[in-house]
């Protein structure tokens, strides 16, 4: 028998610490796949952020620099400027990128830094136990919005793929989901396209991936996956918001 689906070689053969049904694992796999696809793993330097994905180096078989919370784009800027011939990517959560790290991602994008940004939006602060995130949906109950997010006080969910797309320095910005095989295949393609922007020096590329956090949503994995389709996608439209040539 011939294998038709196998673990990417850039992904280490170890169990993850992610909760059952957490799609960080799946997104890791897609990133590793893209690395394999372009054969860039030997040149890759990953920049980890603080969040449930902090253990990047445990799962990817690459060199990794860990950034302070929110600062991965600045660290990646330092890395990529110092080693322009390496392949550099960041991997950040929504608390990390859209709250504390707002400034860093916007200015890195605006400078057109030549790294690839993977942004995992699960509408909550996963690692710290489920606080309201900048992307939490209106009415979403979290540790710090026990009565549900009140947009008049807490503000509106941030649509980061659109914000990034609006910056002159950004070359590619897309939002994908991984809640169904179809969306997963589209996500895989988007990540590869984003990688190609770096490889071909076309500019800064940004991939927002909608993801489930069953634990902090207080749901089973299956319910959580359903919420992505029912509640997240209607608010966070899937699509390509910028694609410079």
């Amino acid at each position, binding site marked *: *028998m011939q*294998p*038709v689906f196998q673990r990417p070689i850039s992904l280490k053969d170890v*169990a993850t610490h992610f909760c059952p049904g957490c*799609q960080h*694992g799946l997104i890791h796999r897609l990133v590793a796949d893209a690395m394999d696809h372009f054969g860039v793993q030997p040149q890759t330097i990953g920049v980890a952020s603080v969040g449930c994905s902090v253990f990047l180096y445990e799962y990817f078989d690459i060199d990794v620099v860990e950034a302070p919370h929110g600062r991965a784009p600045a660290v990646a800027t330092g890395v990529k400027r110092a080693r322009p011939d390496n392949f550099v990517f960041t991997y950040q959560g929504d608390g990390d990128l859209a709250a504390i790290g707002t400034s860093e991602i916007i200015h890195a994008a605006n400078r057109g830094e030549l790294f690839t940004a993977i942004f995992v939006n699960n509408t909550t602060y996963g690692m710290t136990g489920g606080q309201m995130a900048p992307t939490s949906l209106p009415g979403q109950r979290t540790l710090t919005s026990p009565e549900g997010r009140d947009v008049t006080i807490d503000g509106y969910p941030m649509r980061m793929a659109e914000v990034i797309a609006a910056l002159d320095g950004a070359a590619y910005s897309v939002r994908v989901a991984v809640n*169904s095989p179809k969306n997963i*295949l589209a996500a895989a393609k988007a990540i590869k396209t984003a990688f190609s922007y770096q490889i071909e020096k076309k500019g800064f590329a940004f991939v927002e991936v909608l993801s489930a956090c069953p634990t902090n949503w207080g749901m089973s994995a299956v319910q959580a996956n359903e919420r992505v389709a029912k509640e997240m996608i209607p608010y966070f439209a899937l699509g390509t918001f910028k694609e410079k040539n």
Partner: protein
Amino acid sequence: MAKVVIDEARCKGCALCTLACPKKLIRMSDKLNRQGFLPAVFPAECSRDCTSCALCAQMCPDVAITVFRAEKGEKP
């Protein structure tokens, strides 16, 4: 005619693969694995119906699934 191998030690029992399979070939076990989860199982007899589309594997967050296809002329 294909084979789906689910790594029981990696499976966290999230059941997302069962949603993904268009043929509904995968089901959840009722025996806890070492990690304390109820893992997914691909019953051997399902090999026949499996198209090796690998959608189950695509969907698995824990990369616990490998899919094999019979090579041309290979015996079942």
